[in-house]
């Protein structure tokens, strides 16, 4: 074959495969494939969530136990506990591990901090592995990972921490996970724990669908995979949030629901968030202590 073609072919084969390809492919296959397994998984999670919710909500002693704690709220802080760094030509990793400090509830503090550390260790290990593999291939591609945290809300009551991971291979993908802590009562707030029963899943999903359609209408650059969007014939549309959907509480005391890149919208939309108007969910809320 002609050497020009050979050259073009090499270029073609060197088109870098982004790290999220696997995820995108698996997710797309899973949607069609494992309806049964999915259900089982959801039920398992639901059971675990119910146990936790009952623990926090329906046991007055459990909740009261925390109200006696002297007010130390403002000292509860998030700090950068450790940093992992790799800085070699085209390979860059910068992982910042957050740590929550001064929580009276040491068990919770330890649980969160351990989780943060483990996650970042794993990212670091994976990155090193990928880097070695790429070095051996000698393909000289770029590889980058960047993790860190941002404090979304830090007031007397609430501490919401978002941990992000940006993975760069050709393009970048971003995932964000949130933890929201009630500083007064020293508990981790889960989404189900905010609501009286499971109807919030439907209510919030509906609100989000309406917001998606409204946003697309007012801004032609926006696009969501939702019923009502154009050309959705064969595409999987957003139907419902997960019971333990990623969320945080913003400084105005509003519930914010977050979706990672590629989950409910094409990649160019990035991570998407929806602020849920409190009046629409007020009837389902356990109390107005967190969400205002």
């Amino acid at each position: 074959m002609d050497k020009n073609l050979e050259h073009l072919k090499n270029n073609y084969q060197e088109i870098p495969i982004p790290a999220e390809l696997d995820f995108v492919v698996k997710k797309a296959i899973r949607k069609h494939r494992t309806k049964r397994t999915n259900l089982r998984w959801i039920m398992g999670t639901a059971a675990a969530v119910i146990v936790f919710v009952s623990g926090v909500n329906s046991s007055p002693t459990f909740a009261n136990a925390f109200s006696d704690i002297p007010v130390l709220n403002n000292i509860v802080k998030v700090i950068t506990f450790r940093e992992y760094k790799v800085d070699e030509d085209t390979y860059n990793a910068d992982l910042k591990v957050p740590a929550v400090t001064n929580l009276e509830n040491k068990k919770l503090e330890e649980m969160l901090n351990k989780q943060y550390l483990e996650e970042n260790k794993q990212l670091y290990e994976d990155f090193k592995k990928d880097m070695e593999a790429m070095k051996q291939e000698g393909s000289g591609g770029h590889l980058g990972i960047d993790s860190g945290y941002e404090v979304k809300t830090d007031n007397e009551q609430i501490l919401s921490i978002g941990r992000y991971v940006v993975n760069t291979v050709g393009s970048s993908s971003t995932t964000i996970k949130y933890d929201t802590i009630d500083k007064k009562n020293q508990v981790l707030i889960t989404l189900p724990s905010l609501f009286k029963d499971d109807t919030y899943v439907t209510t919030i999903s509906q609100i989000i669908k309406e917001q998606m359609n409204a946003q697309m209408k007012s801004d032609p650059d926006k696009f969501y995979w939702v019923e009502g969007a154009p050309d959705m014939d064969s595409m999987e549309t957003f139907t419902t949030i997960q019971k333990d959907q990623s969320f945080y509480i913003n400084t105005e005391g509003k519930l914010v629901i977050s979706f990672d890149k590629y989950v409910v919208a094409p990649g160019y939309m990035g991570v998407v968030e929806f602020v849920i108007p409190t009046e629409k969910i007020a009837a389902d809320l356990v109390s107005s202590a967190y969400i205002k």
Partner: protein
Amino acid sequence: MLSNKKLENSLVQCITDHKESIYRLAYSYVRNSEDALDIVQESIHKAFSSAASLKNPDAMKSWFYRIVVNTSLDFLRKQKRIQLMDEETLESYSQGMPDVYQNIDLEKALEELPVKYRSVVVLRYFEDLKIEEIAEVLDENINTVKTRLYQALRVLRVKLNDDSYVEV
């Protein structure tokens, strides 16, 4: 929906085996990673929802590639980036160009090639598909594919020796 488990399994196998190829194929049309990933995702959805229409399971790869190519073309059409070009215009491209290309010009020439010509080059030389398979993927007859390939190569000024002509 899928008629049997076996078909579903071989589809998953086919997707998994060729995921990198279809990503590159999509990328060769849209030239950016995020759009290419979107196309991969949409193609998989389409493959599952139209698997019942696959008459010959042996031709699954070509059928799946066809979905990817069509999804990419749909995407480009929506983006209105396609420039339609008749064959006269295409021929005029091959006139008056310098004899020796810098590689960068070669790449540019490939990129500027109208999509229907670029498809055959990508599938034949980069994805190593047979002419018959390309005909299936593009839903054209074999002679059309051969003609397009020949014209495309002429534009690219790739000098063929006799061997590779037979290979075509």
